[in-house]
């Protein structure tokens, strides 16, 4: 008998990389996050083989969720082929044995940075958003400790004041992506730096959204069928990015979120940001229903204020039969 024969084989890594302690901690926190929609639950946040700021928060949530039966999709800026998305997808699959896909319709777990897919997510799907700054109050209150007190008291006046100052100075809100929302009428929440185009998709959605900030160690959630409202004034309603005149240069598709591609001659092309949706459209493959229809109307009528004067007048005079109660 030799020592080498007696010695146990070395297990290279735990299933899904995280050790059992880390998984249990995160799982406990996730359940609380879902029970308190929009509230930032602190968690320990382990180091993973990825630099901080590159999606360690999203990755930890995905690793705590993933099982061999899952089908994982990872996107960055809407693109499955972006190097960081490809890298994450490869890592998750390697550590969990889960299958991967780029097709939104086939995925059970979708980890994303800065986008929500155009096709509507269904009730069995979970969306994990990577979050760089979880604190929506950071702009008005840099200390997380004091911001926590403001959340405790639901004291959000300064945020509306900031919006008001924007309107005085610029006649329009200056916030681009990461536009703050009020969840279940209680917690102000940073939706992660998704474009404003994606904000309404969180409202009364069919799917569960989990948001995780690895560096800042916060996890929070928007359950399905939850009220998610933008910070706005009734006379200056929230508006999504205005890309009404834009069309995808390859497919001609309009009324989906676009990326601008500056050209050498100073001109610009527009490309669908959701690359897998673009792939299906270009190939003439069937797609799922999308959050915004071919005319750019959001699927919850009345959630977004009408944009043209004619539409506005029409609504003022007759109201919208589909308007949700305020």
């Amino acid at each position, binding site marked *: 008998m030799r020592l080498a024969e007696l010695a146990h084989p070395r297990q290279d890594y735990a299933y899904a990389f995280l*050790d059992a*302690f880390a998984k249990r901690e995160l799982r406990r926190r996730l359940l609380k996050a879902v029970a308190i929609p929009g509230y930032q639950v602190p968690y320990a*946040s382990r*180091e993973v083989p990825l630099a*901080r*700021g590159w999606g360690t928060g999203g990755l930890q949530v995905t690793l705590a969720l993933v099982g061999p039966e899952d089908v994982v999709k990872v996107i960055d*800026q809407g693109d499955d*082929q972006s190097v960081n998305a490809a890298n994450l997808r490869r890592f998750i699959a390697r550590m969990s044995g889960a299958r991967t896909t780029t097709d939104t319709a086939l995925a059970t777990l979708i980890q994303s940075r800065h986008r929500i897919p155009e096709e509507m997510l269904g009730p069995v799907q979970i969306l994990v958003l990577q979050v760089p700054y979880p604190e929506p109050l950071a702009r008005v209150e840099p200390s997380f400790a004091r911001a926590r007190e403001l959340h405790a008291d639901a004291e959000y006046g300064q945020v509306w004041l900031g919006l008001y100052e924007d309107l005085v100075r610029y006649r329009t809100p*200056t916030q681009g992506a990461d536009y703050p929302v009020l969840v279940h009428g209680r917690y102000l929440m940073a939706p992660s730096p998704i474009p404003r185009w994606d904000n309404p998709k969180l409202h009364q959605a069919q799917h569960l959204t989990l948001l995780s900030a690895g560096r800042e160690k916060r996890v929070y959630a928007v359950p399905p069928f939850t009220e998610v409202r933008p910070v706005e004034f009734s006379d200056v309603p929230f508006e999504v990015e205005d890309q009404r005149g834009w069309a995808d240069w390859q497919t001609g598709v309009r009324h989906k979120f676009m990326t601008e591609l500056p050209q050498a001659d100073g001109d610009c092309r527009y490309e669908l940001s959701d690359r897998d949706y673009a792939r299906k459209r270009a190939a003439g493959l069937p797609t799922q229903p999308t959050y915004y229809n071919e005319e750019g109307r959001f699927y919850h009528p009345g959630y977004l204020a009408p944009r043209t004067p004619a539409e506005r007048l029409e609504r003022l005079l007759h109201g919208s039969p589909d308007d949700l109660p305020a």
Partner: protein
Amino acid sequence: MAYVAARGGEAAIERAEALYRRLLGPLDPGLVKGLEQALPHLLDRVMSEGSLYAPELAALALAQTGGDLYEAVLLLRAYRTTLPRLAYALPIEPEVLFTVRRVSAAFKDIPGGQILGPTLDYSHRLLRLGGLQSDVPPTVPEPVSAENCDFEPQQVPFVADWHRQNGLMPPRPTDPTPGPAIPDLTREPLLFPAPRAQRLQALSRADTGGVLALGYANMRGYGAIHPTVNEVRLAYAEVRLQHPATGAVFSAGRVRYAQAEVLTKFRPGPDGKPTLELGFAASLGWNEVKLIAAAMLDAAMDLPEPHPAHTEEFVLSHTEPVEASGFCIHYKLPHYVTFGSDLDALRKARAQAVAEQEASRSAEVTE
């Protein structure tokens, strides 16, 4: 466009790593062994910031990353995540450290003497160019003779004990907290104000450069600390464990361990009388720059004046090497969606400005 390849992203990643290996980080066992033996300070920095004492793996991490410290630290931190915590060692007792260096700036002479130990502090900073041409013969330090040696490395007294004996400082309380109950920022998130145990743990893992920058700003007057190094100590500490069946206490081996104490200006003590205050920091490995700066920040963090180094949250959040470096380089990732959204807001604001200018111009014309 260039770095979001429509296809072939994975192949490009593989080739990029291969190119890195060729240009920046060749790997072979001999190199790793050599790094371990030749560069203990570098290892110590990686191990302390990586929060994992494993010289062999620190050397591997350095070789694998071509010496990129932040990447090496990340490798250790990530590896740490994969291993189970088997036990808590018994706490290091300062009184029984195997001390190899202990100096104080507070006094000319101190009980036990100034022990320089292994240091370059007082050497001439001249490149030894001879080392490029021929092998430098190994140096063997001259020991004192056995008969004349009254030095006990495990019994080197503490300067602070002297202050305490003289009533200049309150007595040091004892803390009976058992290992598993000590607050641990790797197991629960750091919330502010942090328990002192988490603060000291955060400082032991902190980024040398970050701690130095904040400590240095404080030293230069952006803050109210006028520090005196009470003591810097380099030592070996035993990792003491208990036999699970019999309870016997034994050492699993020795690790390099260092600590620093910094004195501040006196302030009112708990008994109302003015008293000296000590800042403290310790880490795995020997890194005096970091520990002096960190000990100073420890003393500064609770002061009321509005300097960054006086805010615990500011200091501990911004000296975390893995978070700070990782977030910094994440800006290399594409941001065209958010930027596009910002552009939209800009265009709208510009359109409003144009409309207003035109409106006022046409108002002028009508007048």
